[in-house]
């Protein structure tokens, strides 16, 4: 498991969502499109709440140090209409979150995709909120 902050590799296989996911705020108000992040670790908590879901992940960096991350996803109403539920991802699951870091430098990110070790995608991000034009996968 590792944490990296680098330019997000394009073409990560995201499919178009059947519904756009929109933030209740501007992407640029909080996140930095120049600071992508890829996190792999253990899901420790899921807030399936308005105005955005939040995912909490314990991810190890190259030195083995565990870092606690929190990543914002889409609004639960939109995710629900896209066929997801709070049970689509569970505490204890291993997951990889690709997204963008908060401008304030905390371990906070905007999730554009969430994948399980099998490669299966589950709900994610707040696309079309003025941020990078990455859409989350559909179920």
């Amino acid at each position: 498991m590792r944490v990296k902050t680098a330019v997000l590799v394009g073409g990560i296989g995201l499919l178009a969502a059947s519904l756009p996911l929109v933030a209740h705020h501007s992407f640029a108000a909080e996140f930095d499109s120049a600071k992508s992040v890829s996190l792999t670790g253990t899901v420790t908590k899921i807030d399936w709440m308005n105005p955005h879901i939040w995912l909490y992940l314990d991810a190890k960096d190259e030195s083995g140090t565990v870092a606690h991350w929190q990543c914002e996803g889409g609004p639960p109403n939109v995710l629900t209409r896209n066929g997801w539920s709070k049970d689509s991802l569970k505490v204890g699951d291993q997951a990889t979150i690709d997204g963008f870091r908060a401008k304030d430098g905390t371990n906070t990110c905007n999730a554009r995709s969430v994948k399980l070790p099998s490669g299966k995608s589950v709900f994610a991000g707040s696309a079309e909120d003025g941020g990078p034009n990455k859409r989350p996968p559909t179920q």
Partner: protein
Amino acid sequence: MFLRTLSFIASAVLFPALALLVPSPVFGQPTGQSAGEPGAKSGGPVPRTQDGKPDLSGLWQRPYVPDMTKTTKDQQGTADLPFTEAGLKEWKAYDAAKGDYTGACLPFGLMRSMNSTDPIQIMQSPKYVALLYEQNSWFHVIPIDKKHGNGVPTWFGDSIGHWDGDTLVVDTVNFNGRTRLDTIGHPHSDALHVMERFTRTDAMHIAYEVTIDDPKIFTKPWTNKRTFTLRTDWEIMEYSCEENNKDLYEGHLKPPAR
């Protein structure tokens, strides 16, 4: 469907709007049609209310319009906005990172609510049309054939409506000037005058055209057009912006200056 919707959204904040509408006998949706989905070509003739007006009632899916200048498959925008000198200065100075009123869950205002992706429930009687926005569970009531009031300037403005043939025309003024037109942040002032035209083109669609007029920010009016699609397979859902607004509560974004 109406009763279920009514019970679901009859929260204290929505009750005033619904109380205005309950006596109306003209709620209803076209019957015998398939569930609305994006891309649906048509659904039959325009349904009408008992007074013969096109019936705009229903839950409508709308394209997300984060930038009203763009022309895409979902909208027809105005590419080069006719900014005044002051308007251009305001636009160039905007930085959401310095303060985002929507992130603080303040009212989005009329245009940013119309541009949001969440569906709207339209309820209609001969005297009122009410727009129930799923976004943050807000509502806006439009009296028909009334005159503008002289109230305190507001986030959503003071709207009045009238029928121009089969088109509902909504005229809105008296804005507080604290909102943005769209997510990317196009500005307006308290002199904003919004003219909206709702035309139900068939059972499944509303053609929506909005004209933005603001002499402090723009040298002439400009327009944006898009299409709403009826979703008979959806119900409106509750949306609390304040519930878990970690973005604001933990200081990841800044509220606007007051």
